[in-house]
């Protein structure tokens, strides 16, 4: 900062604090709602300070019947489903993108550019624009209501492939030459040299993809009809619908809290990797 005037500093911090409050307010309100009982949460005005019911709400949400009057899977199972889906999507994307980027950068083979463009085109086809036919394909393959159906159709990713391609291109050519003189074959080079060299990029990408996978909404909504396959994020919709009949905001907001804690935890605890991943994949 060029100037160091007390007033300017004060205004700067004031604006930032107000901004933080505005951004954090919805999350705070959610947290507060998760700490009061059902009766308190049905009286206006709603509380702004936390109560003491958090553990009771958590217990009821996670292992109890959840929202009364609905037929849903237990929330712990939803969390497990979400975790499985997020991990399968993120790890699957990383694995297949690493392999295809390796092939495209380090091999010269017929139809190399065809492969490149076929991968590129996935960038232009988000799931929303091809919902119905993709649904049909998954249904025909018998993958409805399965983890495979939840994750595989979302696994192909041009962005991840491009990012790894970029990373591999910055690895000096001499690395490969040296490995060849050392007698390393392609797969050995991939495992021993290329993977260790890209590990921070892999970790950064994992953070982004985990959040992407965890937050999927439309796709799980379409292909799961069995309640035991419900993910936590899609359950919010059912809860909101139920809320119109019998408001149990303490339970709904506890569920919402549980749905956002894992991705928020990942973002905050791996902030540096997260920022790196975000700016690299979207370049």
């Amino acid at each position: 900062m060029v100037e160091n005037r007390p007033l300017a500093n004060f205004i700067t911090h004031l604006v930032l604090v107000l901004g933080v409050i505005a951004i954090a307010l919805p999350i705070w309100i959610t947290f507060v709602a998760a700490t009061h009982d059902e009766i308190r949460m049905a009286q206006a005005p709603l509380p702004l300070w936390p109560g003491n019911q958090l553990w009771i709400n958590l217990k009821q949400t996670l292992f109890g019947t959840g929202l009364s009057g609905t037929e849903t899977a237990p929330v712990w199972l939803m969390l497990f489903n979400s975790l499985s889906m997020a991990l399968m999507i993120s790890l699957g994307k990383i694995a297949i993108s690493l392999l295809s980027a390796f092939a495209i950068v380090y091999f010269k083979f017929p139809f190399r550019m065809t492969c490149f463009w076929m991968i590129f085109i996935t960038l232009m086809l988000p799931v929303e624009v091809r919902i119905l036919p993709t649904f049909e394909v998954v249904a025909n393959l018998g993958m409805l209501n399965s983890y495979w159906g939840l994750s595989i159709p979302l696994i192909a990713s041009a962005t991840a492939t491009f990012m790894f391609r970029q990373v591999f291109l910055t690895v000096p050519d001499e690395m490969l030459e040296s490995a060849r003189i050392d007698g390393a074959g392609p797969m050995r080079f991939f495992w021993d040299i290329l993977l260790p060299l890209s590990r921070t990029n892999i970790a950064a990408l994992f953070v982004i993809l985990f959040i992407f996978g965890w937050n999927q909404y439309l796709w799980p909504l379409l292909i799961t009809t069995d309640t035991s396959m419900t993910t936590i994020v899609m359950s919010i919709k059912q809860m909101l619908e139920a809320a119109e009949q019998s408001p149990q905001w303490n339970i709904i907001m506890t569920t919402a809290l549980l749905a956002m804690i894992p991705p928020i935890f990942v973002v905050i605890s791996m902030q540096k990797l997260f920022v790196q991943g975000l700016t690299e994949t979207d370049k």
Partner: protein
Amino acid sequence: MADIKLTDLTKSYGPTEVLHHIEGDINDGEFIVIVGPSGCGKSTLLRMVAGLETVSSGEIQIGGKRVNELEPSARDIAMVFQNYALYPHMSVRENMAYGLKIRKLSKAEINRRVEEAADILEIREYLDRKPRQLSGGQRQRVAMGRAIVRDPQVFLFDEPLSNLDAKLRVQMRLEIRKLQQRLGVTSIYVTHDQVEAMTLGDRLMVLNGGYVEQFGTPIELYDRPASVFVAGFIGSPAMNFVPATSDNGVATLPNDAQVSTSLGGHSGSVLIGLRPEHLIPDDAGAISIDVEMVEQLGANTLLHGTLSGTDHAMVASVAGHVTADGDSQHRFRIAPDLVHLFDLQTEKRLAI
């Protein structure tokens, strides 16, 4: 250890030929320096020997065996790269051991070789560090260590000193030479630095535009340069060139001065080459220089100027201190057998 034989070696990228019919026999244990300006094809030639570039035509033999089709790892060579190409995620020890591990040597043997090489290069205390924790000179040593542990038939060096500062470069140059003499491994070393080439090589291969200009010992190259290019490339400051007419042992310079040469029985237009250090101050000498600038180097003095009456640039290197102000005329003589004559058209040396 082995000899290397290059036969009619050619390299083309598509229709453009970048190396033309290279011939060369390298003896067992010899240290060969390939030298030339950037883009002359010297690195390409080295990489062809390494197996990193394919051979368009011709043949490479190592130890009497054709290696054209062999993978780099099967040629029993080791290479030191310009940027060292150390694996950044491995420790020094792992870097040196990697090739041996792939060759499935026993752990004990790997350790023995790594530690032996580390002792030779005095890098034992760095064995467990990562490359990024080392200085440029230390990385250079590790890169050499990685070559030594493989106990190869041939060492290949691709401008290994060009990333170091000047002082370290001189020191490492001596070490590489000592190391090679001690191990006696046939070596090919690529550089664009003529001083490095002269001090390191048993023999030098001067490349220019994909052609071998000359292949010989440093002294041969200095005393009997085969072409204007070699004459100008080897020696510092560079040789002076002046067009002249030669007539049976006498050359007439553009300012009508006459210089005796050892080339009898020849007449016609030539390019005459005079090394700055061979010009001896002599008030009765035939060569007159209009000095414009004086550089005092301590041990000797460089006089920069033009051949009197012309605008051909001339440099003379005179032993000791010479005080001369700009804009003065100095006269020099030169021994007839130190005058180099080149054909004006082909720029090849006229045999003496």
